[in-house]
């Protein structure tokens, strides 16, 4: 049982980090970023190249992932999403754009990094084995780093000027603009920040699960589920959703083992029932 909870917490921390970026982008611009999983994969590959192949320290590699993705995200917002939002009659058109960028990233990643599964040497060796829990140390490190990043992100959103501006934007775009918030600038920063979170998570996890070019889509779907559970566009909801999904996966894999591969079927079904009772997730704003 302890093992299940420990696994759940570890999974939850990394999931929450992925969901945070997605929910930030959604909250700011009402864009469902289909390319989020691909950004994660891109971050993973950058860390793989910098740490695994060039031999630079792991911290540098993860930072490189984050910075690259932030730049990519900022450019995407500036030159793609902003233009389309301005020109389109219906907000949903950004979904086509997001899906197209997801395909584009998939193609680029496949061309540049190939289709092989890539991993890097462990960052910390050894296994923690106490209190009935077996966890490799590197997972603990990554889980803790993820937790610190989440706390840092919350602090950033709560106490800094850009964070305040972004929260204002997410609540009411027009009102924020009237209060003198530079809407365009902070939207771009928000998008870059969301992309950076995806990249950093990808970079952190390449040391544990490795990375391959095909996992972008499934990760996006998982991230969508998390923000649906918690409520789209709400930071606390994304964190809650991440931990809940991590727990459900961990518990489900243990409890439902004898019924075969049905964990995800059960999770999906539960999610649909949950959402029909609570359409906005746990903490979402009405009608997202």
């Amino acid at each position, binding site marked *: 049982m302890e093992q299940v909870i420990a696994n759940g917490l570890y999974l939850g921390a990394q999931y929450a980090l992925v969901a945070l970026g997605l929910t930030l982008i959604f909250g700011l611009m009402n864009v469902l970023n289909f390319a989020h999983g691909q950004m994660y994969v891109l971050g993973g590959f950058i860390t793989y190249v910098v740490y695994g192949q060039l031999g630079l320290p792991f911290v540098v590699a993860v930072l490189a992932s984050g910075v690259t993705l932030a730049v990519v995200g900022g450019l995407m917002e500036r030159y793609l999403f902003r233009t389309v939002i301005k020109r389109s009659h219906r907000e949903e058109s950004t979904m086509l754009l997001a899906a197209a960028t997801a395909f584009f990233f998939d193609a680029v990643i496949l061309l540049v990094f190939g289709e092989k599964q890539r991993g890097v040497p462990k960052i910390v060796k050894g296994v923690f084995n106490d209190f009935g829990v077996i966890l490799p140390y590197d997972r603990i490190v990554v889980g803790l780093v993820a937790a610190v990043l989440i706390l840092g992100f919350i602090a950033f959103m709560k106490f800094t000027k850009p964070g305040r501006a972004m929260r204002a934007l997410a609540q009411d775009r027009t009102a924020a603009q009237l209060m003198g918030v530079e809407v365009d600038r902070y939207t771009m920063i928000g998008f870059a920040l969301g992309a950076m979170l995806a990249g950093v998570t990808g970079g952190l996890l390449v040391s544990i699960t490795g990375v391959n070019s095909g996992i972008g889509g499934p990760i996006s779907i998982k991230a969508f589920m998390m923000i649906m559970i918690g409520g789209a566009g709400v930071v606390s909801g994304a964190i809650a959703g991440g931990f809940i999904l991590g727990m459900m996966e961990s518990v489900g894999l243990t409890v439902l083992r004898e019924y075969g591969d049905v964990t995800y*079927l059960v999770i999906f079904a539960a999610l649909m029932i949950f959402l029909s009772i609570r359409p906005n997730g746990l903490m979402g704003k009405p009608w997202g």
Partner: protein
Amino acid sequence: MIRKLLGLLFFLAAVFILLPLFIEVTGRKDLYYVMTSVALLSIASAGVWLTFYIGRINIGQGAYALMGGYVSAILVMSYSWSFWLTLPIAGLFCAGVSILIGMPILRLRGVYFAMVTLVLTEVARLLALALPITNGAKGITSIPLPGSISIFGVTLVPDFVQVENPRIAFYYVAVVLMVVCYAGMYRLVNSRMGHLCMSLQQNEELASSIGVNIAWLRVVAYSISSFCGGVSGAVFVAATQSIYPSSFTVTDSVNFMLNCFLGGLGYVFGPMLGTLVLYLGWNLLFSTGQFQLLIYSAVMIILMLVLPNGLLSLGSWRRKG
């Protein structure tokens, strides 16, 4: 009015006479299969378009296509029904299921609805893997070709086994269904119900406050949409003679949605054009090998930047200018 009729006549001539003629002249028999797929996919996309019309983003059409395909395949294989009988049953089955699922989830809006339907596609795939009747990952293969239909001894549709090239037969089946589907869709959109659906798209509360039964209307629209998905899936399965849990996946669901976007959400015939362009574009790029996806997605991004309201918005643009 006359322009519309002429356009219709030209379209019918193109799909029933000109295209087969073109294929005969050039000898590219494989094009029949491509065009059959386009016709079938555009039926499913028409369904998705209808849910867009009531203001919902539907990424779950793959689930209904898969469901329709399995219903038809199982009825044909295990109970040896005629394919033609299973076709409406597959559609009705999907419509029935969509009413049950739709009643709770149609209360959701915006991305929430989009994501639930996305999850629905995954649920359908996982169910197909887990249920005993669908034969798991191995799927159902070597499904017999459709038989003949005859009324009072007059053969309306010949037995597909005896047809010289079943692909041509499937092409005509798919195109006839497509024409019927879009004619129905056009009629629906221009009817009283279509205008009511339009009111849902703009403002549900307002529509409800002046006495539109929004709950009933959106369930009906969604079930029509799923009917289209089921029928298209069933014919697809008959044409490929096999079905697997991975026959329709999230990618297909997303593609159905993209077809609608690309063609233009404000135009009934948008999804047809969108399907044609996307499917043909993807196949034409096949020769570019590893760069296929790169070029395809880059073109899509550029199209989106230049024409964010769909390809058909070119027409209204010209008229305005």
